[in-house]
């Protein structure tokens, strides 16, 4: 780890003013400290925002069923908040299935969205071909260790996946990420927050954030009690997903009015099944037609040398999460 200066921001505006060359904001620290240990980041200045009370609250948005979550709320605080547990179960489950109890007491929900890929070449402590680490150096995972890598949206330059669990739930719950900068406030849909390797943002970027921007909150526009998050992994706890699926559902008499489906750990961003979302409208939730609507989306999946199994796992995860959300819908109506 290279030397750095340390300062605490007094408030959000103070934090924004302190942005400069080689300056990193420190929130939960569970990613930044490891990036510095691995040489992925080497800030000369650290601005600690972890004590900013303004960014910690979880509050209902007046005039509706929405919820605003401060960016510094920890994953455990988000997961166990009564309104999240009752009205946004997919988000509660996604938070609880992330990391460990100790890490969830440190990691913030805003920071969680900024986590980077777990690709072993990206996280290597020796220099290996990785276009995200060293532009132009190649992608060792393309024909190397790629069991956990992408089946959607990859290019020859990068086949990694975004590992966040909460991001997948937030995409299906149609959340907005609220971002502050010296230029003002802007909102980005959770579905559009992370970037794919082929996007204009450049391969080194993981998301749409500029270097002088700060996430202040996450807004869930309306309650989605009929939602679910399903995570498939090699062991039952404390492990990244092979694939995951988040579903938000509106159901009437067993027929789908609206479905939002996002897959996790299959691409560099939450992978929404937009075609299935359209085609599922009006179908009986447990019908063969509904199953086909989901399966059709996987015609576009492209396996790497060692991860063809992920296509079947992701497809089944999407279907199971849909049924899980449907059970909640029916349970709620009864």
């Amino acid at each position, binding site marked *: 780890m290279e*030397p750095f200066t*340390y300062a605490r921001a007094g408030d959000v505006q103070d934090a924004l003013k302190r942005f400069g060359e080689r300056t990193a904001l420190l929130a939960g*620290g569970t990613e930044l*400290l*490891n990036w510095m240990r691995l040489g992925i980041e080497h800030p000369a200045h*650290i601005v600690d925002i972890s004590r900013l009370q303004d960014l910690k609250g979880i509050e209902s948005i007046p005039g509706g069923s929405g919820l605003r979550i401060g960016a510094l709320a920890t994953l455990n605080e988000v997961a166990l908040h009564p309104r999240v547990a009752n009205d946004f179960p997919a988000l509660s489950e996604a938070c609880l299935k992330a990391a*460990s*109890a100790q*890490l969830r007491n*440190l990691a913030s929900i805003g920071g969680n969205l900024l986590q980077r890929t777990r690709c072993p070449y990206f996280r290597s402590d020796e220099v290996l071909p990785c276009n995200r680490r060293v532009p132009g150096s190649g992608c060792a995972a393309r024909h190397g260790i790629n069991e956990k890598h992408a089946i959607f949206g990859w290019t020859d330059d990068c086949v990694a996946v975004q590992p966040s669990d909460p991001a997948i739930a937030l995409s299906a719950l149609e959340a907005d990420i609220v971002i502050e900068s010296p230029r003002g406030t802007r909102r980005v849909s959770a579905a559009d927050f992370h970037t794919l390797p082929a996007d204009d943002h450049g391969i080194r970027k993981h998301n749409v954030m500029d270097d002088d921007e700060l996430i202040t909150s996450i807004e869930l526009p309306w309650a989605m009690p009929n939602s679910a998050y399903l995570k498939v992994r090699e062991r039952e706890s404390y492990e990244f997903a092979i694939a995951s699926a988040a579903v938000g559902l509106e159901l009437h008499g067993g027929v789908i009015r609206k479905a939002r489906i996002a897959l996790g750990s299959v691409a560099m961003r939450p992978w929404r099944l937009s075609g299935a979302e359209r085609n599922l409208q009006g179908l009986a939730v447990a019908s063969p037609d509904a199953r086909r609507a989901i399966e059709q989306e996987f015609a576009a999946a492209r396996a790497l040398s060692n991860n063809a199994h992920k296509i079947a796992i992701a497809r089944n995860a999407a279907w199971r999460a849909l049924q899980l959300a449907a059970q909640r819908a029916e349970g709620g109506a009864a």
Partner: protein
Amino acid sequence: MAIPPTTDIAHVIELTLNVNGSAHRCVLDTRTTLLDALREHLHLTGTKKGCNFGECGACTVHLDGQRVNACMVLAAQADGRAITTIEGLSQGETLHPMQQAFIDCDAFQCGFCTPGQIMSAVCCVREGHTKSDADIREWMSGNLCRCSSYPQIVEAVKAGAGAPNGGQ
């Protein structure tokens, strides 16, 4: 590994670590983690350095009453906050009920992960995550045991939770 001394004032921070009820004034390299501050500067070596990447849980301590990985916190972030380590659990020669439960249940072999397991277990009980064996396993999953004493650890957490004062 000791952090090399630095003479550059910009890279040094003066802070107070409140550990187990005692305030310690320290001058540290800004890079010093809470884990290294405890072990290398305050010589509280009960908190173990396993992976130093937030993966194994051996460095679990309580920060303002919540369990965290001390390797993932800069000492500067812990300035002025209440820190409890494994050395702070017992009352003199009387072990904390969870420490006693780990002995009674034979819940360790090599013992390296044990301080972290016990610190995590105390919070697991306090948080109410001991409703079933599965509940305990889920909420204790951030503490790895290479000797694989997991069945005995689950028994110890249950025994600690059932102690007269609820394992606290």
